[in-house]
């Protein structure tokens, strides 16, 4: 099978997968802690507006902060209880961000409303997009872009493909894998809903071949029409296919996935719309299903806790706002060998300083790495071996771009394509001189905004 499976055309690397660490174990539900910190803004776009007050009682699924403007998303209460305070706290990627502290009363008032039998009534199709928006669904692959925005392309473009990203090309992470395996029918139903909204019939679910059980579960759900069990009304016809893809990083990068499945290349600086595609993550598809069929807002997600320095690696279902420390406790704590911790995958994740930060919608995994896994190394001089050039999926020459950055020549660095870089990290992964290529590209991007001379 591997010889015929599709992949993106250029570059890419194949790091140690490490999926076996966390893939085998069952999904564990993390006990909801007494106190949660829900960040006000958990998406890419305009910050949300807080609509609750200090001391106010809230229910599960109640809106804490509403969308402000078209490219924004609301945030819902993951528990019932009292708003303790509205203030600032550290979250992943920001030292200080507005958060809403909630004291959990342990009653989960209001959660019953989302536990009824799911129904997707296609006669209410016009209502679907609104439900997705008000459920606060954002891209769960990591970027956290509001899903409803992506499902409403500008009027002048024609969309002919809905691509579902089940690649999970980041090593170690298995959160999407477990969803595809255990909730395949709902994932596919979510895909169908999105296809219905977009008015396309062609849905392609791309999954890397290192997840055979996920591919099988999805294919079964599609071929035996399991996913239509909850459908009612005038069901449109769908052409849903699972596409096995070669295990190759960054297969799940948006532009690479589009190329792998459709053969089209999104031009530099443009969106997938420009080639008639919409890409959504499998986790997002499930959240869409929950939003439409259960009217359930997004207030929990699966987080992979893995790495050589966590006692019980696996997948953990946690409410948004749960501190990382609670997840670590649920996974049996970290071991002595802990040398580095990362929020996200090893290729694009962010270093984590402590366990105080809360789970957010875009948090796909937490890595607890040993010194050997973290692979920190001193950088040496570039020997111009060209490995980075061959690894770059965007067709750039990272060594040349970063050499310019070293001389503070930002314009030259930009003219060599620094702004096209997706920061996938493939170049730095293969660099024998251990050069900090991605960081230098980020410098260029930083200065391109700050010094517009």
């Amino acid at each position, binding site marked *: 099978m591997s010889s015929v499976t599709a992949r993106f055309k250029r570059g890419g690397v194949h790091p140690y997968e490490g999926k076996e660490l966390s893939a085998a174990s069952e999904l564990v539900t993390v006990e909801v802690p007494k106190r949660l910190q829900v960040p006000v803004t958990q998406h890419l776009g305009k910050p949300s507006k807080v609509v609750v007050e200090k001391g106010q009682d809230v229910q599960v699924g109640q809106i804490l902060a509403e969308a402000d403007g078209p490219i924004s998303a609301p945030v819902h209460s993951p528990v019932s209880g009292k708003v303790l305070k509205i203030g600032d706290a550290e979250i992943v990627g920001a030292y200080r961000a507005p958060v809403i502290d909630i004291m959990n009363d342990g009653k989960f008032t209001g959660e019953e409303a989302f536990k009824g039998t799911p129904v997707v009534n296609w006669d209410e199709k016009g209502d679907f997009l609104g439900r997705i928006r008000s459920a606060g669904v954002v891209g769960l692959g990591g970027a956290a872009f509001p899903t409803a925005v992506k499902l409403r392309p500008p009027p002048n473009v024609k969309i002919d493909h809905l691509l579902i990203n089940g690649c999970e090309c980041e090593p170690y992470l298995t959160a999407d894998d477990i969803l595809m395996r255990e909730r395949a029918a709902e994932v596919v139903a979510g895909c169908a809903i999105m296809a219905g909204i977009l008015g396309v019939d062609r849905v392609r679910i791309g999954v890397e071949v290192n997840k055979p059980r996920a591919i099988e579960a999805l294919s079964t759900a599609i071929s035996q029409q399991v996913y239509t069990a909850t459908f009612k009304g005038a069901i449109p016809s769908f052409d849903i296919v699972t596409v096995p893809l070669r295990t190759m990083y960054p297969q799940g990068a948006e532009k690479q996935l589009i190329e792998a499945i459709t053969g089209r290349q999104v031009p530099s600086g443009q969106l997938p719309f420009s080639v008639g595609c919409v890409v959504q993550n499998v986790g997002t598809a499930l959240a869409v299903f929950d939003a439409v069929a259960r009217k359930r807002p997004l207030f929990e997600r699966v987080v992979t806790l893995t790495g050589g320095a966590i006692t019980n690696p696996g997948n953990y279902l946690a409410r948004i706002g749960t501190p990382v420390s609670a997840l670590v406790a649920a996974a049996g704590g970290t071991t002595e060998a802990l040398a580095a911790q990362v929020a996200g995958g090893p290729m694009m994740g*962010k270093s984590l300083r402590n366990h105080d930060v809360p789970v957010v919608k875009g948090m796909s995994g937490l890595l607890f790495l040993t010194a050997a896994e973290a692979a920190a190394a001193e950088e*040496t001089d570039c020997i111009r071996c060209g490995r980075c050039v061959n690894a770059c999926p965007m067709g750039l*020459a990272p060594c*040349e771009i970063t050499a310019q950055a070293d001389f503070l020549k930002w314009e030259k660095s930009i003219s060599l394509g620094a702004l096209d870089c997706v920061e996938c990290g493939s170049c*730095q992964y293969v660099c024998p001189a251990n050069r900090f290529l*991605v960081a230098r590209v980020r410098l260029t991007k930083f200065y391109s905004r700050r010094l517009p001379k």
Partner: protein
Amino acid sequence: MSENRMILQSSPHARDRESVRKVMYTVTLALLPAVIAGTVFFGLRALLVMALSVVACLIFEGIAMKVSGKPVKETLLDGSAVITGLLVAMNLPSGLPLWMVVVGALVAIVLGKHVYGGLGNNPFNPALVARVFLLISFPTAMTAWPVPYGTDGVTAATPLGVLQMEGAAVALQSIPYYNLLIGNVGGCLGETSAIALLLGGIILLVRKVISWEIPVTFIATVLVFTTITWLVAPDKHINPLWHVLSGGVMLGAWFMATDMVTSPVSRKGMLLFGVGCGFFTCIIRLWAGYPEGVSFAILIMNGLVPLIDRYLAPTRFGARQATQGAKA
């Protein structure tokens, strides 16, 4: 004041296990067959030249680093100076006076590498800079080729020398292909054994230290070019196989032109680089005063690398015009 010792870094947090040191020592390993072949054919004297060149290169490297304020301990043994030393020696006749070997090492390390800022910054292959320097400075010593298995002081022309002086017919008759293949002919101590060099090249390819583009296009260009001249004037020019197996083509294509620092970084650039090396080699061999042109060809192409990298940069993703979707 400090708290925990958690590693903080920007992504990616994973690396493959390759390092500059590993790359360099793989190249050294790949040179081993040729080292053995050189020792077999040219005796212990060849081994002495190689050892001296490596040691001299290491010493000069250490001094150069100290002078330029670089960390000597960490990088002296990264293997790059060892390779330079070996390659300098392989490009010398085994009977060269030892002090000239030391001069060669000095030129390679200081003039070839450190005046430009050290590893990674030199535009020209240091070993070739040394070879050409010696060839121009000491033409007699640098063209006194000891006979394989011969005693000290007995010299003979290289196959290409024979070809230039006495013509294709004599060369074909006096030097059998078998000798060219295993290296039982006169020449630089590391360049004669095509089979040993090929073996080393295969090691480099398998270990992915080099990619196929440069050696394959280099050799293919020599083959194609000399096939044409051979077909046009078979009595004047010798056949392409003889060209490829003789002289420094094998050493040049597998070990000298593929030097990472002085070759292009993109695949397209590498293809052009290989073609250029082959082309200039043939031009010099067939029509210039020197019987062999590999060193000059590679140096010429080294000089063109910045230009090649600029104009043959990899095709950027999305550079293909907006495709079907936009039209649809």
